[in-house]
């Protein structure tokens, strides 16, 4: 099922813009939902129901002066947000969002890039994305930034292990590292969230930590660190960091959907599979809502709690889950 290269290019452009649009409106959704959960109204001045707020934010960020500290080390300081934003956006390329369609004479795949090891690719991009945070904080030449990037680095490295191990169960069950194949396998069986419930839970928890969101938002604890690694950033450079964080959250939700929640499939019915992107988007919204709900509900962890939870509870649970899954799969065959 190959497609001409120009179809891929057009699809990549469309997907990037859709992801950016989702990012922009996730910020609005977050502010609105947080406000409603705290008995406020949230942004309601720009456009009807505040719907133009993300556009207003973008215009503000672009027009703002991008000043930076004189002590900052130029090249890494400028490149760091670019690296973060690039890896965040690139990771979405391998997440399947549909079955593929025949439009006129051409076949269009339901994924931008169908690579056989897409899952590892996402993790590889994620581990490169960390550099944006740590280099940015270091190059800012500020105590708060450095402390923030140290915290980010320690937290991300700690929870990456559990995240990778939680996915292993699905990989063993599906027998493939290809996300397209994993979604395909879930079409006629139970979604992997049922047999891999523990894996799903570990994935969600370490995913929240991996995207530095509440209750694991220690890297940006504003009461202690001003803002964390992006303290000395302003304007669109800060915007890129913020974008990377939200896009990471969206990609992680997409990955959770792909691995555990049947991807773009509609539950129990295959007649509506051509609407794959719609079901994908509905599931995405549900997960994003859960992320925001968590932030409104849970207080931040203490740093020692964060570390001992990651290493002493989450990691053993994820390891046992992977081992048990492997044993069950071997025994079943």
């Amino acid at each position, binding site marked *: 099922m190959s497609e001409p290269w120009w179809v891929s290019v057009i699809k990549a452009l469309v997907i990037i813009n859709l992801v950016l649009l989702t990012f922009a409106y996730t910020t609005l959704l977050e502010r609105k939902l947080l406000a409603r959960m705290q008995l406020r109204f949230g942004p309601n001045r720009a456009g009807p129901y505040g719907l133009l707020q993300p556009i207003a934010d973008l215009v503000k960020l672009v027009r703002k002066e991008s000043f930076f500290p004189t002590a900052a080390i130029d090249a*890494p300081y400028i490149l760091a947000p670019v690296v973060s934003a690039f890896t965040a956006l690139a990771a979405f390329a391998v997440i399947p969002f549909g079955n593929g369609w025949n439009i006129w004479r051409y076949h269009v795949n339901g994924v931008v890039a169908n690579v056989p090891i897409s899952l590892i690719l996402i993790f590889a991009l994620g*581990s490169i994305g960390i550099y944006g945070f*740590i280099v940015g904080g270091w190059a800012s030449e500020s105590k708060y930034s450095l402390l923030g990037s140290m915290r980010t680095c320690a937290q991300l490295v700690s929870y990456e292990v559990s995240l990778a191990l939680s996915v292993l169960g699905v990989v063993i069950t599906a027998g493939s590292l290809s996300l397209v194949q994993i979604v395909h396998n879930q079409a006629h069986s139970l979604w992997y969230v049922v047999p891999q419930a523990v894996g799903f839970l570990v994935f969600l928890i370490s995913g929240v930590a991996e995207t530095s969101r509440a209750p694991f938002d220690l890297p940006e604890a504003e009461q202690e660190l001003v803002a964390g690694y992006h303290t000395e950033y302003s304007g669109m450079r800060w915007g890129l960091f913020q974008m990377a964080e939200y896009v990471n959250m969206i990609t992680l939700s997409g990955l959770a959907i792909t691995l555990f929640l049947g991807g773009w499939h509609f539950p129990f019915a295959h007649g509506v599979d051509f609407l794959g992107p719609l079901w994908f988007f509905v599931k995405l919204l549900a997960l994003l809502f859960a992320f925001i709900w968590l932030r409104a509900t849970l207080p931040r962890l203490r740093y020692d709690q964060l570390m001992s939870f990651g290493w002493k509870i989450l990691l053993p649970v994820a390891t046992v889950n992977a081992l048990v899954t492997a044993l069950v799969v071997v025994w079943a065959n």
Partner: protein
Amino acid sequence: MANVLVWAVWVVAAFSCLASGIAVVSFANPFFSALALIGNLASLAVLYLLLSAEFVAAGQVLVYAGAVMVMFLFVTAYLGGRADAPWAGGPTWQQFGAVLAAGAILVEVIVVIGLKAGGRLSHEAKIDAGFGSPHRIGRVFLTDHLLAFEITSVVLLVAAVGAVILGAHSRGDRVPGHVSGPGRGTWPEET
């Protein structure tokens, strides 16, 4: 067309590999050296990609360029990571030794490749569709190279145990049950 593209990518990757390797040893600032090492590992990954080893390339980026180098950066940033004063004296015996050793390894690599590959270098290797897949690599690991695989895992286990012991030793004077951290410290009373 495809061959030209492969050639172009190879030239860029090979030269960035060499350039970043030189940069690693010539930067005075250890942080920049670590960054150059990341570039070096990443351009090696590109070379693996050209050799149809997607899994190895992704593993290289994930493990070496990702997880391992983050630790390097973490430590250098923690220790300050500022430039050392440049070496004032002349070349030392260590530098002579390093250059000699590097030259010997280079000659050795060329000789071994020449002896092992011989005339086959001028032909394109024939590979099938499953070449370099995780499935194939896993099979090789658990059959032909089982001993090396197991020895590596034992070495890693020893390293992990050692790290735990070192970490436990440095925290030995802590009172059991007492948690020191934000929120539990004693703050001076405001007067």
